[in-house]
């Protein structure tokens, strides 16, 4: 029963995101499927922000106070657009046999992932020791208290924790099995978005093929439901991918609206995990480069927007006298030859881990050797972000205590893996002209 409630809650969260995108016309009507793919991520950012703001303003976290503003917002959107809303059955597209096989494959894989998420309570260490611990604590306390953050020794941003808290508020109980469906939701919406982005440019079977490759990659299956559900790495990979998609849209259209939506998602990305901040910075650099090249200087103020929620959260922590211990106590500066060797060998070992990734990373680095980094502008940007983030992880492994590839690289690669799939899809089409 709880699982059904969580599914409806996920749909509601997505509806919030979708109505914001369409209500403010942040993506065009033609990009409906992309809007659907991005809707869950935006909805998560918005409800997490709502919980955070309510906590600061001492507004009780009750179902009514949380849900009704969004219900009114959605109803307002429906009323405003009542003349243009038509309930029509989707056109039945004639699919070739290969497309049907791929769709069945995708649906079977997704079903397996959701089934796995519901089979066990939360399993993976970081999920229950960090993300769901905080979700539970916030739910029990009914707000975010500096004392509880200090108790949990928590420095991570709160978006994913607050998503868990929101689910528990709707359920009126802690259920650390049903809440894992949120990981499956990120997995499903990533698949929808990935397909939509490729379908926009390429054929149906090309888009389906690469979507199948993505959803069937073992590490995505694990993070979506099997054994590693509950972590924040898949959400970060999903949001990073949305940011890149929106960046490319902005580069093509030079319009303010995708830039605004990009800023919203840069903010959400930075507020999921620490690793989201450098990704947001790298994407911002690419955006600023585009603004400078095209002399779109009037768009510069918009590029500051994404930093504001992140800075507000940091200032709030400072005002609450919460200590920053990550780089100062638990992961101090430390270099040693053995660390460096381990950093590189451990990372390479994961990159060639066929069980987790198939041949994804092998093909990616082979393509870099064959075609270089700057095949075209979009591929260059993707390579810049992917390689900068990877180098950053290597630098962290080389220079900080307590960080090593064995315990984390498999999760960290999730942050950039969707971009790598996208890169390979674009490159393959460029080279093979399918």
């Amino acid at each position: 029963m709880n699982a059904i409630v969580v599914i409806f809650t996920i749909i509601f969260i997505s509806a919030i995101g979708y109505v914001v995108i369409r209500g403010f016309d942040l993506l065009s009507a033609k990009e409906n499927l992309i809007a659907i793919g991005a809707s869950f991520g935006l909805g998560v950012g918005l409800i997490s922000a709502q919980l955070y703001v309510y906590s600061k303003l001492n507004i009780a976290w009750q179902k009514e106070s949380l849900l009704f503003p969004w219900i009114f917002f959605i109803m307002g959107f429906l009323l405003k657009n009542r003349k243009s809303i038509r309930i029509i059955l989707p056109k039945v597209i004639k699919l070739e046999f290969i497309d049907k096989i791929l769709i069945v494959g995708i649906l079977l894989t997704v079903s397996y992932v959701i089934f796995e998420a519901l089979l066990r309570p939360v399993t993976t260490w970081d999920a229950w020791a960090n993300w769901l611990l905080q979700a539970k604590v916030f739910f029990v306390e009914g707000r975010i208290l500096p004392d509880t953050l200090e108790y949990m020794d928590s420095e991570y941003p709160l978006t994913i924790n607050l998503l868990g808290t929101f689910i528990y508020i709707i359920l009126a109980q802690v259920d650390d099995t049903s809440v894992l469906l949120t990981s499956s939701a990120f997995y499903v919406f990533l698949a929808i978005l990935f397909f939509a982005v490729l379908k926009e440019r390429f054929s149906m079977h090309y888009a389906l093929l690469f979507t199948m490759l993505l959803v069937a990659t073992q590490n995505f299956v694990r993070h979506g439901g099997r054994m590693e559900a509950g972590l924040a790495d898949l959400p970060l990979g999903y949001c990073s991918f949305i940011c890149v998609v929106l960046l490319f849209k902005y580069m093509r259209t030079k319009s303010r609206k995708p830039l605004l939506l990009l800023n919203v998602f840069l903010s959400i990305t930075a507020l999921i995990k620490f690793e989201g901040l450098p990704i947001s910075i790298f994407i911002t650099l690419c955006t600023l480069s585009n603004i400078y090249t095209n002399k779109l200087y009037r768009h510069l103020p918009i590029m500051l927007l994404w930093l504001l929620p992140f800075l507000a959260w940091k200032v709030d922590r400072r005002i609450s006298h919460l200590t920053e211990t990550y780089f100062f106590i638990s992961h101090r500066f430390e270099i040693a030859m053995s660390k460096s060797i381990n950093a590189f060998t451990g990372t390479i070992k994961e990159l060639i881990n066929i069980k987790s990734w198939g041949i994804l990373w092998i093909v990616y680095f082979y393509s870099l050797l064959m075609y270089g980094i700057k095949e075209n502008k979009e591929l260059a940007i993707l390579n810049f972000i992917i390689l900068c983030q990877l180098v950053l992880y290597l630098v962290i492994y080389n220079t900080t205590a307590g960080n090593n590839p064995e315990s984390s690289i498999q999760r960290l690669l999730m942050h950039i893996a969707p971009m790598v799939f996208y890169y390979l899809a674009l490159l393959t089409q460029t080279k093979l002209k399918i």
Partner: protein
Amino acid sequence: MLKSISEIRNWAHLSDGEKRYKIFRESYNMSLFIDKYTQDKSNVVFVSKNLMPYYFGRYSLYPKRLYRADNITKLKALLSTKKINYIVTYNMNIKIEDYNPIATFSSKNTSDIGILYKSK
């Protein structure tokens, strides 16, 4: 499909408690033990070199708060800075002053031993 069948066979028939024991082993039983013999919203120091039972207890027992010490110096530091209602030792032989032993945990499947002390 084959994977799903084997997963159903291994997990579907288990109760929630059995699943948690399958995943967390004695950490799960230890947290049940602490929960049974401590009052609501109490502060407990977990004295052990084992990390898993502490972190799992911290998650499963909240709003009871668990703090960790792996030696007598850290234990004394916690006792002097926080109002500690209980101390639980897990696989550690350590002299506890000003607290009375009230319950003992002994694993049926391993040699793990835990003793729960309450403040006088």
